[in-house]
């Protein structure tokens, strides 16, 4: 079963991939508190989708997990799962518990 720290590493790698496309003075801080989407975030919609895609692909290729991060289940949450690295990690962990 995948662990929280493994999921966090995948999200960090996806953020690093986004940073590779950004200017040196426009890098996104990478930590579990990093804001992903919503007020105060520095990602736009295209970058959020890129991050979600990279995380889903890594979960599949590295761990054999088929996970959809953007579907109706995400809508049912009181807090968006994409708010921070921490909330996304916990959401992925929850989704993968049953797989």
């Amino acid at each position, binding site marked *: 079963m995948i662990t929280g720290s493994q999921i966090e590493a995948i999200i960090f790698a996806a953020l690093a991939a986004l940073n590779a496309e950004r200017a040196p003075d426009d890098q996104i801080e990478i930590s579990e508190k990093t804001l992903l989407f919503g007020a105060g975030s520095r990602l736009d919609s295209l970058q959020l989708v*890129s991050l979600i895609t990279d995380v889903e692909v890594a979960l599949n290729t590295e761990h054999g997990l088929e996970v959809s991060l953007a579907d109706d289940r995400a*809508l049912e949450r009181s807090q968006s799962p994409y708010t921070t690295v921490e909330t996304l990690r916990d959401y992925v962990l929850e989704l993968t518990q049953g797989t």
Partner: protein
Amino acid sequence: MTLRWRQAERAALLNRGAQTVAEQAAWIAARPPSEYNFVIELLATGRPVGMLSLTDIDLVHRRAEPGRFLIGETEAVQGIPVAVEAMKLLYELAFDRLALIRVYGTVAADNPLMLKWQKYLGMKEEGRLRSHYFLNGRFQDAICLGLLVAEYRAVTLPRMRALIAAGHAAPDRPSDSTENR
């Protein structure tokens, strides 16, 4: 405004646009009736932040090409699902109001963010046009993408709703686009 957006670095992977205000104005005035062109505005302030279009609308074959998709005010849309809401409005126009059954388009192979975006939102890769674009000083392939109405309803809409909900707590959201048909 749209000329400034088209000349920005972010538009480097779009086709070359007008170079002067007069050229841009002439281009806007020459838009045919087979297309809709929109400016994307934020709901709370009415601030224009980008543009997108639905072109080559064919009501016989019931297809059209979304395009000219450009966020010009990048700092204004951080953390807000502006692009998703704008695309959702455009797809509602295409599939619900115009009853089209297919939208399609091409993306430069060197534009991975846009390719990921389109594919995540349901577009299927249908082919590759080799050395189709001359952009940034070199030729590059165009990736052909298409989306059918059934795929839009099954894949695109749920993902768009989830992404839009992700930004619901943000202070400023986009409005219905301002039409410039």
